[in-house]
C-alpha cells in the first residue's frame, strides 16, 4: 500500500482532465496524497461568490478508509466548525470504498447549498440557523464576503 495505488493515479488524472464544475482539486507537488481544493460557493446560497479553500488527504488505506477533508477558509455553516472540520456522513460511517474524491467534493458542495442545522457540528451557528434563519444567512453572507472573497 505504500506505493501510490493505481486507483489514486486514475482518480487524479481524471480530476485534472475532466474537472467537476465549480471544484478544483490539485495534488501537492511533494505529496500525491495531499490535495489543494477550491470549491466555489453554490449560487442561490449565502456562500455565492466565495472561493473556499479546503485540504484533502488520502490515508494509507484509501479507498478502504475515507479521505480526510477540512475547510481552510473560515465559513459560517452549521455543519462546519471553527477548525474547518466537516460533519458529513459519507466522511464517517457511511463511507464506501466505491465513493471517490470527486463524489466527496460534490457532496461537500451540496452541503453548502443545503445546511442541516439538525445535525450540527458548530452548535452556536446551528442554534441561530434554527431560531432565526434570516439572521444566520446574513452572517454567512458577511463571512463569505470577509473571508472567501478578495484574495
Amino acid at each position, binding site marked *: 500500500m505504500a506505493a501510490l*495505488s*493505481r*486507483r489514486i493515479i*486514475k482518480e487524479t488524472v481524471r480530476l485534472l482532465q475532466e474537472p467537476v464544475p465549480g471544484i478544483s482539486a490539485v495534488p501537492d507537488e511533494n505529496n500525491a496524497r495531499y490535495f489543494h481544493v477550491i470549491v466555489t460557493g453554490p449560487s442561490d446560497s449565502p456562500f455565492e461568490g466565495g472561493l473556499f479553500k479546503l485540504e484533502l488527504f488520502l490515508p494509507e*488505506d484509501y*479507498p*478502504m*478508509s475515507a479521505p480526510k477533508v477540512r475547510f481552510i477558509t473560515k465559513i459560517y455553516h452549521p455543519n462546519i466548525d471553527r477548525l474547518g472540520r466537516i460533519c458529513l456522513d*459519507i466522511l464517517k460511517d*457511511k463511507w*464506501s*470504498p*466505491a*465513493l*471517490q474524491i470527486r*463524489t466527496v467534493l460534490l457532496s461537500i458542495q451540496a452541503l453548502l447549498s443545503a445546511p442541516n442545522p439538525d445535525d450540527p457540528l458548530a452548535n452556536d451557528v446551528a442554534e441561530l440557523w434554527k431560531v432565526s434563519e434570516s439572521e444566520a444567512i446574513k452572517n454567512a453572507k458577511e463571512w463569505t464576503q470577509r473571508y472567501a472573497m478578495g484574495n
Partner: protein
Amino acid sequence: MKVRSILNNQLINMSNDSDMDYSSEDNECEYDYYNTGVADVDIEQIDRKNMDSEYLEFKCLNVEEVEKLLNESVEHLSNTIHLMPSLAKVLLLEHSWQANEIIEKYNRNPNALLIRSRIKPHNAPARKPSSNEHMSSTSHQSSSQPVCSVCTSSQPSQNFFNLSCGHPFCKECWASHFETQINQGISTAIGCMASKCNVRVPEELVLSLLTKPNIRDKYQQFTFSDYVKSHPQLRFCPGANCQIIIQCKIMEPKKATCSSCNISFCFKCGSDYHAPTDCQVIKKWLTKCADDSETANYISAHTKDCPKCNICIEKNGGCNHMQCFSCRYDFCWMCMGDWKTHGSEYYECSRYKEYPNIANESVHAQAREALKKYLHYYERWENHSKSLQLEEQTLAAMRERINTKVMNGLGTWIDWQHLFNAAALLAKCRYTLQYTYPYAYFMEAGSRKDLFEYQQAQLEAEIENLSWKIERAETTDRGDLENQMDVSEKRRITLLTDFFQ
C-alpha cells in the same frame, strides 16, 4: 440457625411425647414452643428460590459451551423456517435470539424481515457488474475483462464476487475491506462496499476471503462477542481476562458469581452488585460521585457561607474574626455569629452551637443544602465501602485473637470458628447497607422514603451491634451472637424484599 432449629425439633418431639404423658398444667408452655418451632421448620423446608429473594439461578459456561448453545438455537431456527444456518444466525443476532418472534415475523412477511435484517437489499438487485455508476467510463471501455470499481484494475470475471445486492468487486478488494472494518472493531455488521448499500456480508464469506491468521482470529473473537452481547441470557464475566460467560434465564438485577475468577456482579448491568438500588440509579450515583466528590469534599471541609450575604468563603489562615470581603460583615468563624457580641472572647469561641438557620431562599444556601445532603449520603456510602475494604485486616486480627485465646486455653480452635461466619454475615450486611445510600439519595421525600430510611437506620444499628459483638467475643458461648446475626440478616432481607418484588 442450625442449632436452634435442631433444638426446636427436639422440643417438638418432646412436646409430642409429652402430650400423652402430662396433663394440662404444661399446656401454655408447650403451645408456645410448638408454635415457634413449627414456624422455623417450615422456613427451612421451603426451597431457596422462594425463601431467599436474592437467589439467582445461573450457570458459568466456557466458550465452547456457549458456542454449542448458540449453534443449537441456530439449528433449531434454521430447521423451522428452512433457511441457511448462517442466515438464521443473522436473524437471531438482530432479534436478541427470540426465535419465536422471528418465526412469527417470517411467516407474516419473509421479505420484509430479510430486508430489515440486511440480508436482502432494499432495492431490486443491481443487474450487471457495470451497473455501478462510478468509473463507468473506464469499465465500459475495457472490452473483455470487467473492471473493479474500487481498485480500477481489470481482472478475469471469476475474481469477482457480489452479495445478494449484485454489486461486484474483486476478491482482493473485498478482503482488504474486511480487514479495514475488522481493525475498526466491526464484525457482524460489515456491509457491501457499494455506496448506500447496506447488505450484510455473511460470516463464511468473510472467513473464506481472509487469509491473515491474526485478522481471522480477531474477526472470530468479535463476532462471538457480538453474539453473546446480543443474547439476553448471556453475559461475559467482567473479571479481567476471564473467559467465562454467565447464563441466566431471567434478566434480573441480582448477584451472579463467576466460578472461575470469583468476581460477583449484577447480572443485569454487569457492574458491582447493587441491591436495593437499581441499575440506572447506581449508574447515576457512581457518575455523580466520580464528578463531584472531590470538589464537594473540599468545599465542605474548607469553606463556609457568610451568614449575612451567603457568599462562599474559604478560610486559609488567620484568626476566627472574619470579615466578609463582599458585604464587610464581621463574624466569628466558629459560631458564625456577629463578632460584636463576642466582646473580648478572642480566638476561641465559647458560644459554638448549632449552625444558625440561615435564610433558605438564597441560591448559595440552597446549593450548600444540596451539597450537605449529597455529602450526608456520600460519607455513609464511602464509610461502609472503606469498612469492607478493611475486611482482610479485620479477619487477620480475628485470627490472631483466636490464636491467643486457644493458646490460653479458652476453648478450642473449632469453638471459635463461628466468628468467621459472623464476620462473613457482617460483610454481607454492610455491603447491602452501603448500596442503600444511593437509593435513598435519589428517592423522593415522602412516607416511602421515611420508611426506607427507618429500616435503613435499623439495619445500621444492628450491624454496629454485630460488629461490636464480634470484636469483643470473650467466650465461646455463641447464643447471643447467633441471635444478633439472625436479627441483622432479617433487617437486611426486609430492606431487600421491596426491591425484588
